[in-house]
């Protein structure tokens, strides 16, 4: 990275544009959306990218149709994405659980705005973090990645597609107006790109069962609707053959597998940044846009001879429990920083009994500032 500032060309992109570009780079071929501030520019950008390249980008009649259309296209073999904000996430709910239960790969971008309800369209917040995890029937896990910069938006979206393909589940990108609609100079060419992963096809199609599992990763092999071999998709609780079942053993195994296949692999997709200060006794834990204020605060505290360490989570769901426990171990004092009233804080608290776990939070439409964090640390 030496000399990068002098020799590199950069682009001016907002988080939404970077997400669209990351999706395109990951092989997204289908996007369906519905206009909503502050997520609309993802749709606008996909409209510029997909149709000229043979992909499909459509505007649907509502968010229910946006995600429904994506699920149909994903079952037909396409890599799909949709994006919205809190009010649209509410309407996605029933189809999110379908994507979980039907093991339909999809990337869902939530550019959060201040809630509740219609809230404030042009003010940021991270107020739907728990809603993303729990906002649909069944209580089964989803994967959620949280970018804190424009380059994160690009690279984590690529990762999100890979994870959706690999684990056959919905993968969320949780951003916020303050990332989605903030522009930043970014050198896309310098961002490390993951190798593209495509959903695994069966080696032998004879006797194919759409939900049979033979691999240790617990993920069924995929064939698309429209293949020579017949494929069934079913929102009802189903057995390996895709037909409704009432067999308690089959039901139980299905439920446990949907949990296990995501949660048991979280260490493989635990993304994070950290700044570890040897002499610190406080660790700041944060994610999303607040990570940037925390990073600035961390640097300024260091020069004030008040060193603190910083852990920036980029995987939020499933909770990267091993990472959090391991990284928090050396510290007496933990401070969670987030743009809501402490939604993720409760996860941190539950993982770190015996430690002093405090919260810096703000939910007024403005960013948590480095000064707020510094003040809190110094007053401690």
């Amino acid at each position, binding site marked *: 990275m030496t000399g990068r*500032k*002098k020799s590199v*060309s*950069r*682009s*001016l992109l907002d988080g939404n544009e970077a997400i*669209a570009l990351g999706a395109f780079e990951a092989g997204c*071929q*289908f996007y*369906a959306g519905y206009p909503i501030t502050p997520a609309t520019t993802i749709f606008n*950008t996909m*409209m*510029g*990218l997909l*149709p*000229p390249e*043979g992909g*499909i980008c*459509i505007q*649907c*009649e509502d968010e*229910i*149709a946006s995600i*429904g*259309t994506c*699920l*149909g*296209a*994903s*079952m*037909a073999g*396409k890599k*799909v994405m949709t994006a919205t904000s809190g009010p649209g996430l509410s309407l996605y709910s029933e*189809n999110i659980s*379908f994507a979980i239960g039907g093991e339909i790969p999809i990337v869902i971008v939530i550019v959060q705005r201040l809630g509740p309800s219609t809230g404030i369209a*042009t003010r940021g917040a991270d107020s739907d973090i728990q809603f993303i995890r729990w906002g649909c029937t069944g209580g089964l896990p989803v994967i959620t990645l949280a970018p804190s910069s424009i380059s994160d938006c690009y690279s984590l979206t690529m990762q999100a597609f890979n994870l959706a393909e690999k684990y056959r589940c919905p993968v969320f990108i949780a951003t916020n107006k*303050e990332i989605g*609609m*903030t*522009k*930043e*100079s970014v050198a896309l060419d310098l961002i490390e790109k993951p190798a593209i992963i495509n959903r695994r096809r069966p080696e032998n199609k004879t006797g194919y069962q759409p939900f049979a599992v033979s691999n240790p990763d617990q993920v069924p092999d995929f064939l698309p*609707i*429209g293949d020579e*071999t*017949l*494929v069934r*998709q079913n*929102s*009802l609780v189903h057995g390996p053959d895709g*037909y*409704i079942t009432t067999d308690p053993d089959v039901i139980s195994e299905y439920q446990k597998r949907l949990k296990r296949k995501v949660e048991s692999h979280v260490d493989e997709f635990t993304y994070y940044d950290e700044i570890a200060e040897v002499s610190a006794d406080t660790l700041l834990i944060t994610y999303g*846009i607040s990570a*940037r*204020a925390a*990073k*600035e605060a961390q640097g300024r505290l260091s020069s004030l001879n008040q060193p603190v360490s910083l852990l920036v989570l980029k995987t939020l769901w499933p909770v990267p429990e091993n990472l959090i426990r391991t990284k928090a171990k050396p510290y007496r004092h933990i401070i969670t920083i987030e743009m809501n009233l402490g939604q993720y804080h409760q996860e941190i608290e539950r993982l770190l009994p015996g430690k002093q776990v405090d919260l810096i939070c703000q939910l007024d439409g*403005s960013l948590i*500032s*480095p000064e707020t964090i510094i003040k809190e640390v110094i007053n401690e």
Partner: protein
Amino acid sequence: MNSLLNSSRPPLYCPGCSHDRMTKVLDHALQNLGISGHQVSIVSDIGCNGQFDTFFNTHALHGLHGRALTYATGIRLARPELNVVVTMGDGGMGIGGAHFNAACRRNLDLTLLVLNNFNFGMTGGQYSATTPSDATVGTGFLNHLEPPLNICDMARSTGATFVKRISAYHENLTETIEAAITHKGMSVLDIWGICTGRYTKKNSITPNTIAAQIDDMKGPEGIIPENARPEYGKAYRKAAAEMPPTFQLKKIPKCFDFSDPHRKEIILLGNAGQRVLTAGELLCYAGMSAGLLVTKKDEYNITVLRGPSISEVIISPDEIEYTGIKNPSVIIAIAQEGVDRRLELLKKLTSDTLLICGTDLKIPTTSARVKQIDFKQLKIKSTDRALAAIAVMTKFQTGITNKMLQYALETRFKGNILKASLDIVSRMNEKN
């Protein structure tokens, strides 16, 4: 052709239910058309029709209530060669009304079979969108207060290109389904049937009464000439092939040396329609042309040409973390609404800040260095104030030079807009 019915999963409908015969009719239609199981996907909705996918050896998708048309749309757009047959009940017509309208307007090549039996059979005979007002169903007087939905009128008025109402007992039903499947566009068949499990208990309905009523209603007979137009998927692919790529990634190389290596924080305070955000973008491009890093954070209301519009730009040789601004190097104030949003900040300014502001604005008493611009006297339109002000800014030691601004304009604009913008900049350079 062989039957596509799944012999290991025979239909389990109530004795006398018309859905049972519908499975056979659909099977015959598919056979007559020579369609194999892998060439068709059945997308079933919720309710008794929702079991249709299990009775056939075809591709199948069974999803949530009322949403069948949305899944079908995705499948068909992704696989234009696949026949997509959607089964839905009168319940699905109600809960999925928006999807029905959208599918008819779009005219994607889907075949919708509405298995209309006038009530929610599976859940206990509640009234649906098509229950006649004089019927007796499980929801008391509620259906007496609402007229039933005319599915064919709705399909025709929203643009479906093939629409027909037909009895589940009609001798030509197989041929009609074949015609609907063969039709290139959105086909809607409103197929009237009998729910023996619930509806016939208190309502007298027979194949004969259905036939008489359908005759009486004189609905459309298939192709709707006034709706004739290209199939959506085909039209989409044609339009897409002709569309030039509209997203072009601009890459800004380092072209200039920045005269001042310190971080700059610039706030533009204006109102909507003054191109404040565009001016912020120009400052970003200018900074980037000197190899610097930038962020731009905007603030505005949901109103489009009303309300304040604020852009906060940071230009820095180092990584920019926090994107908010506390100690601005420059504030450009061009409209009162923007100024009023930052009154507290304006009051606290020191001589470190350069404040460039219109002479017609009420600015609180400040210790900032002030450069006033009389936009009216200079005949600068409201929409050009932001650009004019950043042109003035280049005359001060702010790090942004006139050359960098020119480069930014050439990056951002083309043709007449570029020319007009460069004119404004040169006028401001002359006047100040």
